[in-house]
């Protein structure tokens, strides 16, 4: 075989692998990209979905806030084994307090938590909602699926994604020549351009997010490595985890009471050590005991997931040395930090978020391209294979159905009764019910009509979010501007922009021809043929 022949055959086999590795788990990959993208704004989504939260203010210092929070915890949970105070940050507006109880409380829980208003120190009762975290967690826990199963399903999907990316790079002959090429209004060619541009221009992100996604569950995905090196007994595995995640060495309580240093002193010392880093949390272990100690963590500004915390003796104030993180842990921590983008400021977060949506666009354009290619390969008047009809309809349910579900999730947050039992869970049910309805609708309606109807609904649901918010809460856009609540304002505006973009897409969708005469397939073909020029753009 000549080298050119070999290259051609190799590229062809890679193209086959690219098509099928991308197509088979496309639903899962699209789901992961859409829901995972919300992880970069999980706290902001929380803020919008809990309109009872006060507007952020930075009137009080970290030391004052920590003092107020510790006083609350000592008053409410005097016998707790540990107190934790999450300090307000740019992204998290409330004081979060948490107590590990020595005995389970009346509700059977061994912990208690609450949100405090940073301005008053009073507890804030917020509605029961999944918030941004529920959306974000879905991208690896798949919500209804048992966690242990879900991470393997997601792992297989991620592996397929990595395969699709690598084979896609090999397949793409004109990767540099077509680097900026995005032609609208050219039918199948436009979809190919969109697929190429959405993947190639965000390729570093795609490769990073996929690879780092696999690193998250290294030991779950390759347990043999763990067992062969460390044996199968739990102690050996615990040793490995202790090596990778050193954390604090436990200090036991001695049972003697002692006067503790005020938390404000500790905060002051931490701020001296980290003059440019806002503090994220302070905790107190064994409060009231002679062995009590404080821990302080700052907001990460480097490639790590939490940085190395500081630790102080709560009686003497002496610094307690913290074990250094080993190099391999720093590496894996850095990879995971890149995935989560914890270090990212608001500008980089937007780029992460948009890149995540590009990932979803890459999957979506790939799906449409696959179906369009099969359509054009059909001979004139030939019957359309059922498999192709099925995939075209499923494509609609995937591509438009999931964003519809997300919109329904936001609407449910505002419309479900506040006293509803398991309200947060019902918000999530609404997402999946609407998504399922989208599949049913795309199966029941003539395809081009179904596209128009669902995209119109999507546009309306997102564009009306600001109105819904203004009608059901006092955090509407006008009030948000007056109160300086930029997070809620930007959330509303983002929904509005997304609604307008969906409306623009709707305007370009082909208008279905009326009264099909002889079955559905020829009508669909006619529509697609007519739309060939306009659907791409």
């Amino acid at each position: 075989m000549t080298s050119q022949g070999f290259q051609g055959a190799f590229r062809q086999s890679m193209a086959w692998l690219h098509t099928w590795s991308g197509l088979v788990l496309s639903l899962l990959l699209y789901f992961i990209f859409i829901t995972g993208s919300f992880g970069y704004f999980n706290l902001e989504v929380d803020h919008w979905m809990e309109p009872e939260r006060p507007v952020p203010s930075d009137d009080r210092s970290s030391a004052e806030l920590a003092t107020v929070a510790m006083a609350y915890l000592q008053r409410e949970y005097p016998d707790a084994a540990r107190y934790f105070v999450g300090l307000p940050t740019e992204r998290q507006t409330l004081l979060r307090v948490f107590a590990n109880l020595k005995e389970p409380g009346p509700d059977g829980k061994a912990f208690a938590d609450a949100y405090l208003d940073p301005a008053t120190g009073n507890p804030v009762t917020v509605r029961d909602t999944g918030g941004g975290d529920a959306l974000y967690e879905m991208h690896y826990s798949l919500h209804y699926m048992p966690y242990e199963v879900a991470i393997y399903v997601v792992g297989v999907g991620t592996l397929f994604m990595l395969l699709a990316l690598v084979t896609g790079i090999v397949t793409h002959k004109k990767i540099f020549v077509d680097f900026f090429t995005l032609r609208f209004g050219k039918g199948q060619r436009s979809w190919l351009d969109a697929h190429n541009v959405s993947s190639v221009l965000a390729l570093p992100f795609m490769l990073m997010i996929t690879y780092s996604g696999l690193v998250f569950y290294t030991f779950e995905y390759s347990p043999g490595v763990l067992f062969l090196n460390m044996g199968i007994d739990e102690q050996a595995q615990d040793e490995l985890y202790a090596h990778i995640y050193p954390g604090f060495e436990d200090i036991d309580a001695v049972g003697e009471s002692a006067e503790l240093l005020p938390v404000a002193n500790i905060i002051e010392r931490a701020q001296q050590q980290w003059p440019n880093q806002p503090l994220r949390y302070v905790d107190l272990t064994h409060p009231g005991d002679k062995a009590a100690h404080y821990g302080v963590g700052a907001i990460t500004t480097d490639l790590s997931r939490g940085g190395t915390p500081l630790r102080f003796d709560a009686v003497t104030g002496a610094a307690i040395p913290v074990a250094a993180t080993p190099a391999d842990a720093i590496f894996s921590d850095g990879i995971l930090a890149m995935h989560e983008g914890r270090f990212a400021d608001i500008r980089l977060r937007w780029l992460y978020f948009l890149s995540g949506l590009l990932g979803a666009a890459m999957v979506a354009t790939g799906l449409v391209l696959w179906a369009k290619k099969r359509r054009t390969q059909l001979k004139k008047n030939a019957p359309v294979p059922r498999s192709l009809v099925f995939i075209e309809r499923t494509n609609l349910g995937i591509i438009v159905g999931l964003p519809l579900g997300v919109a329904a999730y936001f609407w449910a947050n505002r419309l479900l009764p506040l006293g509803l039992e398991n309200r947060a869970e019902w918000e999530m049910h609404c997402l999946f019910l609407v998504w399922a309805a989208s599949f049913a609708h795309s199966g029941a309606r003539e395809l081009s009509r179904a596209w128009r109807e669902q995209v119109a609904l999507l546009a309306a649901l997102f564009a009306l979010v600001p109105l819904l918010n203004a009608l059901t809460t006092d955090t509407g856009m006008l009030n948000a501007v007056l109160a300086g609540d930029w997070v809620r304002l930007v959330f509303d505006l983002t929904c509005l922009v997304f609604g307008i973009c969906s409306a623009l897409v709707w305007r370009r969708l082909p208008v279905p021809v009326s009264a099909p005469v002889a079955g559905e397939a020829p009508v669909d073909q006619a529509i697609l043929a007519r739309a060939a020029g306009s659907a791409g753009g």
Partner: protein
Amino acid sequence: MSFALGLGACFVAMVLLALAQKKQAALVLAAPVSRSAQLAARAAAALLIVASLWSGVDGYGAGVGSVLFCAWLCAAAWIVALFLSWRRSRGTR
């Protein structure tokens, strides 16, 4: 400041790279770009990309700076691609 600087450098680099391609340059410029101008544009783009990476690493450290640099490259390339696509849809060939 380094954020805007890095993103700006990437953007100019991407514009230069696009102009160094015949098809893309035809969408923006009236006259075709000569071979030597293409080479100069590519060389300047390479320098700007290095400068952008340096700006990211200098301002944010090696780890975060590298991530930022990749994000700037993607964002800048997207802006240029969308602009060229808009030019094409306006009928410029």
